[in-house]
């Protein structure tokens, strides 16, 4: 009994700690544009949300998609086209991007979820390549040029997104809402079922869960949130390009997630921040970025497989358990 109370106290303490860290993180992000170049921060936030959305699928459902660039880059195209050609306000363009990404996710998920493991990854890759070639050919994407000069416009007709701070705080709000949505999904009754499917799919079936439906739902949610990140990125950078739908982009988001820590809430954010920061730092040096990220990836796989945040969490838990063991002995 005493042990249970002790554990509860500890659980409460650690959740206090987590809440504290989240508050500090938000404060840092609020203050950041006064110290760091906002465009870089916004790029980090977009990729962080993209990686979190990807992690919803890989970390919490156990599905490795190799086609997430489709949703990220596809939503960027839809949003950019709607805003630039049809003159939609930015919020409507972003919503269109999200809806388009969700639709693409529904189609890709429908074909992919019937397969498992490497076959799942290969089908998502194949469909993503089809979408890539569609984007190369389709007239509205303007091929190699992409959609350029997308106006940022007025958010809800009020807020001028051309003001650096306005757009930064808009991106921050979207990012926080997106991450909150993912956190809510993961820590919901539905998220519990997803975890059980990841843990033991056959057992979930034998408990009466139509596993395919749950996987498809998770796939569409992940696609929609990846689309949110892509659409916002199109508004921030005022263009949508082929780069965002290439398989390299799908690979990059895997790298970010692995580096930060699969199946952790904060890991993908840290991973995305690191990769984007590194690319930014190396961009002017002339040193090939791919070599650097590749080396980091190798180090990650060989030295800390749980990723940065995953490793910290595991050490922290181990230390706490040793600590609580001692106290029980006393």
């Amino acid at each position, binding site marked *: 009994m005493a042990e*249970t109370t002790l*554990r509860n106290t500890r659980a409460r303490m650690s959740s206090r700690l987590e809440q504290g860290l989240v508050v500090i993180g938000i404060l840092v992000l609020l203050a950041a544009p006064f110290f760091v170049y906002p465009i870089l921060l916004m790029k980090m936030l977009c990729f962080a949300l993209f990686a979190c959305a990807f992690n919803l699928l890989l970390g919490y459902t156990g599905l490795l998609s190799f086609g997430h660039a489709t949703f990220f880059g596809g939503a960027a195209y839809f949003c950019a086209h709607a805003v630039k050609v049809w003159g939609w306000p930015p919020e409507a363009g972003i919503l269109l991007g999200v809806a388009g990404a969700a639709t693409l996710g529904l189609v890709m998920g429908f074909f992919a979820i019937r397969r498992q493991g490497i076959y799942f990854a290969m089908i998502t890759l194949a469909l993503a390549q089809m979408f890539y070639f569609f984007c190369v050919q389709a007239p509205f994407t303007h091929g190699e040029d992409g959609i350029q000069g997308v106006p940022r416009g007025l958010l809800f007709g009020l807020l001028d997104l051309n003001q650096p701070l306005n757009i930064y705080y808009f991106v921050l709000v979207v990012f926080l809402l997106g991450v909150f949505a993912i956190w*809510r*999904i993961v*820590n*919901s*009754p*539905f*998220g*519990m*079922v997803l*975890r*059980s499917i990841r*843990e*033991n799919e*056959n*057992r*979930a*079936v*034998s*408990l*009466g*869960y*139509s*596993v395919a439906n*749950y996987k498809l*739902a998770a796939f569409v*949610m992940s696609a929609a949130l990846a689309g949110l990140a892509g659409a916002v990125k199109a508004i921030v950078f005022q263009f949508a390009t082929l780069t965002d739908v290439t398989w390299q982009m799908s690979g990059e988001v895997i790298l970010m997630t692995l580096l930060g820590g699969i199946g952790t809430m904060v890991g993908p954010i840290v991973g995305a921040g690191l990769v984007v920061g590194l690319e930014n730092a190396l961009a002017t040096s002339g040193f090939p970025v791919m070599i650097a990220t590749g080396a980091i990836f190798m180090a990650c796989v060989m030295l800390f497989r749980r990723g940065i945040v995953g490793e910290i969490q595991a050490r922290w838990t181990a230390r706490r358990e040793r600590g609580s063991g001692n106290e029980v002995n006393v």
Partner: protein
Amino acid sequence: MADEPCMDSTEPRVVLSARGLRRVFGGFVAVDNVDLDVHHARIHALIGPNGAGKTTVFNLLTKFLEPTSGRIELLGHDITRMPPAAVARMGLVRSFQISAIFPHLTVLDNVRVALQRPAGLSAQFWRPLSALDRLTPRAEELLDAVGLADARNKLAADLSYGRKRVLEIATTLALDPKVLLLDEPMAGMGHEDVGMVSTLIRSVARDRAVLMVEHNLSVVADLSDWITVMQRGKVLATGDYPTVAADERVKVAYMGMEEG
């Protein structure tokens, strides 16, 4: 017959029946023309030498495998072409040879996951986990009944082998199945655990049908009301323990080894 709601106390009603069940893998006939009736409130053991097709029959009955031909009825409904999750929702729930738990969930969450679906709490992605709190008392009750209450906050992966199997049974019972299929529930268990799980199965079978594959013949003799012996994909004999044990073919095929 199975549709009849009235219960005859002398002849328990059939809840699960298979007719002419057959499954071919490539050219190999794994299950050949198997007829099987599983009765309410009976423990029915499916025995036979390795490779007799017992697990394949399990997979066919629970629809984890499609039968090549034959017909399966559950509670009077034809389930021959139904997907496995739908069959489970109708009340036919199975366990697996390798203990089927969710290793990185806590013991309590293992049971709660099973309770979620019948409670209509499985698709709600917008509600917090505390929405599941109302399932906790029932989950604790189930854990209590199988003697796992003290381990509720442990990760399922940290349980001993025997206790993992017990957890699996508790999770299965959470669905309140009409028919329980247990694939070698005692495999790899120590003596105390076998006794405990036997008691558990007996109490569970009081108001539901149990079909189990089991190799431990003393457990089979002790526990089962009805036995079906399989060999090379076919049913060799079926009946109560004395009948089956007296059967010459069974002696030759299977029990003979035990008596020698």
